């Protein structure tokens, strides 16, 4: 026997549900309809487009790596320990999730910018971050990190600590438990968290333009390029948008697969 059949839904629910689905899908179709197919290849392979795409992929990859390096320990600490003020700390750390990205960019500017909190001492050391590719990476990491932490912390809580306790009674030190039990068990959650973070990095606009500016090949990522082209060459903007939509679809497919590892 398969799943027990559901008790059913009132018929009126389907109307707003359909309306919502159309609201999301029709604009995507509108892009496809508006694409200038004859010049599509030329538009997406122009020098500025390729530079933007390449920059976006590079920075999003590095940012995702940073998210994993910092996010895994953060999620583990949040899910597996208890300390005073933990709830507050969690809310604050996850703030970029709900913060307007422009505000994030301003916050970063006044931290790492030339006259920022840390910027001055960094300038003394000869490091200048604002309006560089490094700034793009920092902006993306800032907005994407909470995505990874939230999804991994959820996976850790769902997995529970039962297997970890068993491993400890088998003589495994906390380090061994983390490496051989905890992380392998939440690998699907970690993978989909990383994919989500990568997608968020690719789409980053507000914090990037505020903190990193828009220099072709240095800080002008794909979303920035699309925004710029929209005024001078709408056809190019539409073509590049379609590229981002396709990348998003691929990423989402990965994330769905990652959630079903076993």
């Amino acid at each position, binding site marked *: 026997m398969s799943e027990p059949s559901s008790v059913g839904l009132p018929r009126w629910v389907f109307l707003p549900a359909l309306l919502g689905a159309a609201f999301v899908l029709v604009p995507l179709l509108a892009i496809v309809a508006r694409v200038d197919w004859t010049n599509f290849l030329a538009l997406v392979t122009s020098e500025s487009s390729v530079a933007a795409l390449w920059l976006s992929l590079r920075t999003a990859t590095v940012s995702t790596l940073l998210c994993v390096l910092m996010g895994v320990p953060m999620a583990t600490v949040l899910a597996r320990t208890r300390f005073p003020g933990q709830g507050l700390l969690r809310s604050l750390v996850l703030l970029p999730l709900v913060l307007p990205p422009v505000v994030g960019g301003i916050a970063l500017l006044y931290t790492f910018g030339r006259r920022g909190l840390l910027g001055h001492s960094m300038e003394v050391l000869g490091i200048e971050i604002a309006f560089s590719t490094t700034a793009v990476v920092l902006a993306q990491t800032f907005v994407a990190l909470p995505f990874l932490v939230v999804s991994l912390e959820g996976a850790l809580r769902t997995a529970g600590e039962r*297997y970890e306790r*068993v491993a*400890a009674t*088998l003589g495994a030190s*906390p380090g061994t438990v983390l490496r*051989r*039990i905890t992380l392998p068990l939440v*690998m699907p959650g970690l993978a989909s968290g990383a994919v989500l973070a990568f997608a968020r990095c690719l789409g980053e606009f507000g914090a990037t333009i505020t903190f990193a500016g828009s220099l072709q090949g240095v800080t002008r990522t794909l979303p920035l390029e699309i925004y710029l082209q929209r005024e001078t060459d709408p056809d190019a903007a539409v073509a590049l948008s379609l590229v981002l939509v396709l990348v998003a679809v691929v990423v989402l497919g990965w994330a769905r697969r990652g959630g079903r590892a076993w």
Partner: protein
Amino acid sequence: MVSARGSSGPEGVAVELEATVAERGVQLSLQIEPGETLAVLGPNGAGKSTLLGVLSGLVRPDSGRVQVGSRTLVDLAEGRSVWTPPHARGVGLLAQDPLLFPHLTALENVAFGPRALGSKRVAAKRQAMALLERVGLAELAARRPHQVSGGQAQRVALARALAAAPEVLLLDEPLSALDIDAKPEVRQVLLELLPGLTTVVVTHDVLDAVLLADRVAVIEDGSVVELGRAAEVLATPRSAFAARIAGLNLIDGAWDGEAVRASDGQRIHVAPTPALAPGVRCRAVFRPTAVAIYAAHTEGSPRNELPVQVSAIEPHGDLVRVRAGALSADITAASALGLRLRPGMPVVFTVKATEVTAYALG
């Protein structure tokens, strides 16, 4: 004696435990002999799990002491704070649920303990394979946990616990989550592998207590109320809980190759046939509920028949307990009335061979 971890020879280690956990209303004091199996019985919430938690290091008592062999694992008396984390205790735990690591094969599960304790990969796998063979599952080494049955999973979990070479093994109702059909196979493996290893087994099943354990401790309201040899505690229960669960039928005798032959010549057949050598002293065990009563001998019955004389009839929950010397039968009130039972009456206690378990007496 050097208390090398993994010495699971006949000279196991002794355990001494004293613990107070105020939050759970538990105040326990217990000593376990080297190499013995101690069964812990008691109502839910009496403190059985707390006992295992304190021993394994998953529960920190407010005060107390845990001594395993020559090692002091916990000493939380006034002004002292010795605390050994679970992974450094050499105390293994097998719970109701096998909890095999889902991302590892059966073999990798069993090899986990040796690897964690520093064995090389090849050596750990060889050791794991040997243990899988001892629980009779070598052919399932490459399977994932979701590809084995519940009973097999629990046997793999036992092999995994033993592979970590614990000085003390804790079993938390190891059979209770298993199907009726899977219980005997796991029970059999426990019977074969536990002797010589200091073991604490928490169980609800008095039959398992008698089969697996040398001694029985009864815990009620957070403290040990009875402690003694299994047969004695159950024969002369002093606590309310022990009295409620006692009454198991025990017949001692010798294995004659086909059945248990009691000293009075009575033979008790056992199915499936246990692996006992002819002539070995053994004990047949069966529950009072497995006994049916007939007024007279029935011709051609495949059952064990025990001619007895009724000595007492008393209510026992929803049933009627009929005592005949050392034996008891629990039958419905209707059948007791139908048989017109009264003390002194000769009747026949019958029990199917499949309801009887036999084990060698040490």
